[in-house]
């Protein structure tokens, strides 16, 4: 069963706290992504990872960093979260052009 799993699904953090969003996939895909989705803005690419320790900035990397130490796992880290980072975050993995998405993490920074 091809699956991208995101944990947690819902998260509330205070401004200034560190945030860790985790993502796993069971398809051995080399390429993985982190997006954020805000109303009316569609999907914005934060980071893309081409394999273990091979990460590239997307369109909006500021305030975020990532870690990929195993092909199956890709983490998104917010150091000192800000209120404008309140959003829904999606992890995805791809095989060539076909992209598979997780169900998202709804992060609220208060």
């Amino acid at each position, binding site marked *: 069963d091809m699956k*991208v799993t995101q944990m947690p699904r819902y998260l509330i953090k205070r401004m200034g706290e560190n945030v860790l969003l985790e993502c796993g996939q069971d398809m051995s895909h080399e*390429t993985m992504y982190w997006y954020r989705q805000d109303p*009316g*803005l*569609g*999907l914005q*690419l934060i980071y*893309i990872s081409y394999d273990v320790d091979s990460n590239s900035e997307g369109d909006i990397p500021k305030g975020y960093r990532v870690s990929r130490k195993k092909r199956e796992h890709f983490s998104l880290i917010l150091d000192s979260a800000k209120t404008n980072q309140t959003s829904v975050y*999606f992890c*995805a993995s*791809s095989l*060539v*052009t*076909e*992209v598979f*998405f*997780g*169900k*998202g993490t709804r992060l609220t920074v208060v």
Partner: protein
Amino acid sequence: AQSVTQPDARVTVSEGASLQLRCKYSSSVTPYLFWYVQYPRQGLQLLLKYYSGDPVVQGVNGFEAEFSKSNSSFHLRKASVHWSDSAVYFCAVSTHSNYQLIWGSGTKLIIKP
């Protein structure tokens, strides 16, 4: 540079009526084209894709899309919508030289009973 435009942020259709969601793209080469659907509180799921060949491609749940090179379009259609089709639909493009997807802003489909 590639870009995707979905000109309609919201579309309202009566149940049983036909549907067209518009997608226009800009690309210097013929791109790969995709439609994804996002149901409430879910991630995006692939609906259909076009790589080459027959310009009309069939997807899941009775959806189809037609590629038009002359119009730089990839519109999504369905002959008769069901209430369960209520969702947000995203058009996306990529090329064979760079598989990274460029996303449209999405169209929210509302089905009236």
